[in-house]
């Protein structure tokens, strides 16, 4: 009798456990490919950190999928006629997650922290800011030393996420990344390093009604196939970074939706222009480019899921220069260029390749293609961290495929790589003409004119070829088809506003 009772109780418990798992529809779980670093917009360095903060926090503004600015905590903004002062009007019904009022003083303190904190990763992005004022309770004026075309794009990214000044005071700026408090729909609840981050809905947030889920759980699953298995089994609702070679298989599954989101990024081959040898000549670099069939690389290495391209921005971007189209593969043309450059054939060439499966696959294809055009291409496949060191030391001929992951403004992918003072200008490309153009893109506040200048940047970069751009990577999300209403920012991050789960 007791035994029968026990076993019945156990059975009931098992069923209950099963049902409660199915019934707790109010948690949304998202599988991340990396463990985020500090959840602090000022010190954060990782892509995945923005994914998490983007769900928790609202910024001053954001971008839509076409990179138009969309007001969030700043309801409106305007530039002064001389372009030296940006006035922002803030929403008046917002509080931080600890109850501190969100107002102009808090924004001023937040921007000043991003500018002045010694370990700030954002200071360089907003170095044009000379001062921040709070003339009204909900009015912020940002003064810049010269007109700044990319400043708003920074406000639509991490700089625009403001943390509660009270929380920073209490926790200390150094530790706030472990217990973040911002203004946004989901407040930090718990973090287990390398496992999960749980955020909880803020019930009295001004637009709380637009958020259907009580909690959002981020689960850290670095392995691509583990992430996918968890999505397929229903253990997570959304996964990021689906391996492009898995897209075809996953698309067969009616329960899963695959969504590649276009992102302004690029992967490229960077040449070391300071190294003596054939690759010091732009003709040789252009010949190498001509030997490549970028579409074939995209088809073979990525199942056609990436976007082949030859400029710093993707072909579908307005900043892409239509007058500099992607050259077709032309082996004879490449040989002719090599002859013109007067180099000894075959041209010896070594590519430093970061040891990542997809990168190596691309490099092997470049090796095979270029050999047909008269290059004796060797691959030096090395641990990624080592390539950082080697390129910093100038100890390489060419490095790639490599490049920035995401941006909401072309400045973020162009300036640091192509300007002579750029922190990522590892090609050592020093061109006065390019420097002048890039500086103009920063001060030209007329959007149409600025697009024109970026077209000139693209044309000059194609002529000088310090970098051979290869392809652009969409951010590929896969999610349970019951999840409805997902949208993305212009730089490819998730937006959970108005997202629901169909029953």
């Amino acid at each position, binding site marked *: 009798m007791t035994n029968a009772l026990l076993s019945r109780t156990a059975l009931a418990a098992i069923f209950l456990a099963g049902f409660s798992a199915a019934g707790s529809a109010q948690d949304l779980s998202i599988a991340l490919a990396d463990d985020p670093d500090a959840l602090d917009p000022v010190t954060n360095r990782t892509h995945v950190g923005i994914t998490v903060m983007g769900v928790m926090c609202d910024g001053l503004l954001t971008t839509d999928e076409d990179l138009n600015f969309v007001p969030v905590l700043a309801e409106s903004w305007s530039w002064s006629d001389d372009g030296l002062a940006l006035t922002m009007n803030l929403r008046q019904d917002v509080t931080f997650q600890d109850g501190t009022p969100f107002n102009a003083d808090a924004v001023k303190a937040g921007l000043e922290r991003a500018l002045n904190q010694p370990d700030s990763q954002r200071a360089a992005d907003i170095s044009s800011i000379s001062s921040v004022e709070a003339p009204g309770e909900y009015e912020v004026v940002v003064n810049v030393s010269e007109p700044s075309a990319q400043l708003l794009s920074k406000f639509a990214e991490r700089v625009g996420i403001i943390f509660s000044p009270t929380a920073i005071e209490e926790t200390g700026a150094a530790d706030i*990344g472990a217990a973040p408090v911002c203004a946004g729909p989901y407040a930090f609840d718990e973090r287990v390093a390398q496992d999960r981050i749980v955020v909880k809905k803020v019930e009295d947030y001004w637009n709380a009604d637009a958020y259907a889920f009580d909690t959002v759980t981020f689960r850290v699953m670095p392995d691509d196939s583990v992430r996918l298995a968890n999505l397929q089994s229903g253990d997570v609702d959304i996964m990021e970074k689906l391996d492009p070679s898995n897209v075809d298989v996953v698309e067969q599954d009616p329960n899963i939706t695959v969504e590649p989101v276009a992102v302004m990024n690029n992967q490229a081959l960077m040449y070391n222009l300071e190294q003596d040898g054939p690759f010091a000549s732009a003709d040789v670099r252009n010949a190498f480019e001509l030997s490549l069939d970028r579409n074939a690389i995209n088809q073979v290495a990525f199942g056609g899921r990436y976007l082949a391209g030859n400029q710093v921005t993707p072909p579908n971007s307005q900043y892409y220069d239509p007058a500099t189209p992607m050259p077709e593969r032309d082996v004879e043309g490449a040989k002719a260029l090599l002859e013109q450059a007067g180099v000894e054939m075959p041209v010896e060439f070594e590519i430093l390749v970061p040891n990542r499966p997809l990168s190596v696959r691309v490099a092997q294809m470049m090796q095979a293609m270029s050999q047909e055009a008269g290059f004796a291409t060797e691959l030096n496949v*090395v641990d990624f961290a080592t390539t950082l060191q080697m390129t910093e030391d100038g100890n390489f001929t060419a490095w790639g495929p490599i490049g920035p992951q995401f941006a909401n403004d072309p400045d973020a992918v162009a300036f640091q790589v192509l300007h002579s003072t750029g922190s990522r200008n590892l090609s050592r490309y020093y061109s006065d003409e390019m420097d002048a153009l890039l500086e103009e893109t920063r001060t030209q506040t007329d959007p149409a004119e600025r697009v024109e200048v970026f077209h000139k940047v693209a044309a000059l970069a194609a002529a000088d070829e310090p970098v051979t751009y290869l392809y652009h990577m969409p951010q590929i999300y896969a999610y349970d088809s019951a999840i409805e209403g997902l949208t993305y920012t212009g730089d490819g991050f998730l937006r959970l506003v108005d997202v629901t789960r169909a029953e």
Partner: protein
Amino acid sequence: MLRFLANRVLVAIPTLILISIIVFSLQQLLPGDPALIIGGGEASPEVIAAIREEYGFNDPLVIQYFHWIGDIFRGDFGVSYRTRQPIGPMILDKIPVTVTLGAAAMLFSLVIGIPLGILAALGKGKGWDHVVTVFAMSGISIPNFWLGIMLILLFAVKLRWLPAGGFVPFTEDPIGCLRSIAMPAVVLGTALAAAMMRHTRSAMLNILQQDYVRTARSKGLAERVVIVRHAFLNALVPIITLATLQFGTLLAGAVLTEQVFSIPGLGKMVVDSVFNREYQAVQAVTLLSGVAFVAMNLLADILYFWANPKLRANR
């Protein structure tokens, strides 16, 4: 007994020092400048210089070593540069997870391995023996991660009976805990079960030929009593030794198993920390594993001393 103990501990000390030096130097041998990696590839030279200063990368290696070991003696394992969380508490969080998984795997291997071993020994050369031997060989040969992925595909993706990954602490939800560690424990325990089975089989075969077993049988004892009371209990000694010594195998297996099932234990911590270049976390976990291994060996020595009357007589 005391002298024996003191002796063992004294021998363990140089081993531990050696382990700490090896762990520290391995880290130094890894390619790449840690400051550049911590800087994330987009930091300015000033930031890189500040990082070098903060983490003491500018000091001579010997000084760095003593700083590191000194901090550890004070219980300070450093702070994760990535998450800004202290590493010591992070490890403390993960120990119960790996211990739960290890215990479940050990239990699985005992429950499967010992009865099968006995069966195989009793039916030596017959059908059962062959079946069990094939199981043992497969169990030893199948790679952990492959078995894990196959189980996930079947039980999580196809049948949806069990979660594909994650971990629920036993104290929070016992049934959830069992569900979450069922597959990982099977994966981690399979090779161990196979080893256990082979050892049980050979130990039983050996003992079944002993005189006292024949005596027991000739006294007219029931076969069940002969096997359980007289043969198996004696065979248990080498089995216990094996189980203790499998600690290292379990720890190594946990690295892969935890990764496949995304279980937040020490094994996953090591792998993730290596990928994220969390040098201090890797050092701390490796060092602790080394210490734990030495401690387990010490424990095995003591148990053996206690269990073996011959050793006690010879001291």
